[in-house]
């Protein structure tokens, strides 16, 4: 803690950028991320594959250096935070020796942090005490993931990062994994997890940071982001090509319209207010055969993360 009034943020990213060299020129994986996470928050870092989530996490862990910008973990450099055991991570894949037991893995990890105590308490907290003597290579994906979680616990980190922790797990494994994480986070640990499962962010996070193409496109409570993401689709038929183009132009001028798609002779309109759009189409235009459909969250998520434009929520909550 510093002497200032605000507590030191668990995580502070300022103008964070990361470029990778590629044959086709530099690729910008992270493109100017500003983010502050307070101690005790459970935050989902939500975005499609390739949004820059893993690149960002690697920089937070000190595994890679930013091209520009800064990362502070509890006010310190990532490498120092790692050495002090204040930040730990559950990586997506790898990072395990297959030919030692679950208990040996955790005991070794603890020893690397200078503790020679029993691994059992950590195994219990991760819900894998019954697997203690099993070879890591024979554990299922979900069991290995809980092992990674147990390993992350040995330094009693204040900040825990999870990179797509449940990828490839079945429903049961996912639920058990999150039960273990949630039980632990209740003690006040800051948890940041990357995911591309909207439902996972919705269920387990207090706050959702939506990223796309290396930028933060929305940041707010799960309810806020959900309301942002829940829209409807209105579609209608306009037979004449010229007429259809004119209608599309008029629709675009409506403030409630988010996006317009052409599918053959149908116009497909994404909107936050389907009533307005339907009323407009039926009363002011030649549109007919109108349909209104509820967006599912996945569609909305895709719409939000593929549209490069900033959403209304952008930066509004912090």
């Amino acid at each position, binding site marked *: *803690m510093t002497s200032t009034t605000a*507590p*030191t943020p*668990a995580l502070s990213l300022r103008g964070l950028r990361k470029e990778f060299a590629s044959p086709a020129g530099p690729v910008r994986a992270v493109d100017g991320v500003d983010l502050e996470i*307070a*101690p*005790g*928050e*459970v935050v989902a870092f939500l975005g499609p594959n390739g949004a820059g989530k893993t690149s960002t996490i690697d920089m937070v*862990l*000190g*595994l*890679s*250096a930013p091209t520009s910008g800064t990362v502070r973990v*509890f*006010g*310190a450099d990532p490498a*120092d935070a*790692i*050495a*002090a*055991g*204040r930040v*730990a*991570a559950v*990586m997506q*894949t*790898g*990072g*395990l*020796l*297959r*030919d*030692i037991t679950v208990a*040996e893995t955790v*005991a*070794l*990890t603890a*020893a*690397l*942090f*200078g*503790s*020679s105590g029993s691994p059992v308490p950590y195994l219990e907290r991760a819900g894998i005490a019954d697997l203690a003597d099993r070879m890591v290579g024979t554990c299922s994906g979900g069991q290995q993931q809980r092992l990674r979680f147990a*390993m992350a616990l040995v*330094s*009693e980190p*204040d900040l825990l990062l999870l990179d797509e922790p449940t990828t490839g797990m079945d429903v049961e494994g996912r639920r058990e994994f999150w039960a273990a994480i949630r039980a632990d*986070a*209740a*003690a*006040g*640990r*800051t948890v940041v997890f990357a995911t591309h499962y909207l439902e996972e962010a919705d269920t387990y996070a*207090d*706050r959702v940071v939506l990223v796309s193409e290396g930028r933060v496109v929305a940041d707010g*409570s799960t309810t806020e982001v959900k309301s942002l993401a829940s829209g409807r689709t209105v579609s209608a038929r306009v037979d004449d090509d010229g007429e259809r183009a004119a209608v599309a132009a008029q629709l675009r001028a409506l403030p409630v319209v988010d996006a317009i798609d052409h599918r053959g002779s149908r116009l497909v309109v994404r909107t936050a207010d389907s009533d307005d759009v339907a009323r407009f189409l039926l009363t002011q235009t030649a549109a007919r055969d109108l349909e209104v459909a509820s967006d599912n969250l996945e569609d909305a998520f895709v719409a939000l993360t593929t549209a490069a434009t900033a959403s209304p929520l952008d930066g509004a909550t912090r």
Partner: protein
Amino acid sequence: MSTTTPTAPAGTTRTSGARPRVPVATAVRTYLAVELRRSLRNRRSLIFSVVMPPVFFLIFGLQGDYADQSAGNGNVTAWIAVSMALYGAMVTATGGGASVSVERAQGWTRQLRLTPLRPTVYVVVKLAAAMALGAVSVAVTLAVAAATGAQMPVGAWILCALLAWVGSLVFAAFGLFMGYLLPAENVMQILGPVLALLSFGGGLFVPLGDGWWATVAQLFPTYGLAELVHAPLGGDLGVGAVVNVVAWAAIFSAGAAWRFRKDTARV
């Protein structure tokens, strides 16, 4: 919004930087124990390190009247036993070095970077475990040889064993370097045959004779060590052999250090 309010963050009891430094001894002791247990469990590497060298000795070292022919101040059987002891130590050390890159491919070294363990300490632990297994390999081969008719002075037994064991460090660096260059989980499937070829070429398995090959062989990384480990049996140790060992040790270590530094740099 948050069910876990930031009023009691987990970090309040800690002041950053005030942590005691991680006792490296605990880390190294535990890690070394884990590595030794892994060696004992790995049937494949046990066969290559501890079973094959004495078996090779039994096949090649007991032919004809080798036991009655003298080689320096021992018999030919002893000469071949020392060759096989070096071969076993070399294979073990190479495997130990190469396992670093195997574990890198499995993401383990990345995982270690999330702990206070320094990458150099990790490599030292890996090599120390390999050297421990190498000592067992040398001891088993020479014990089998002693029991089946190899003869040389007591001092030569001890010196040959030590030279084969310590000399194999050159190949630990070789394994480390090659592992970084050929990052594959089955790198030893490539390096195993390479070691066998190097052993033949460098005069470890068969005498070099006096032909043109004897000249070419002097450039092999196995040549210097082969000459060196047999020195206690008598005969003259040429300057070329010593230069060979030092040069290859330098090349492999520099290569390994170069790749290691590149690998551990933050990019």
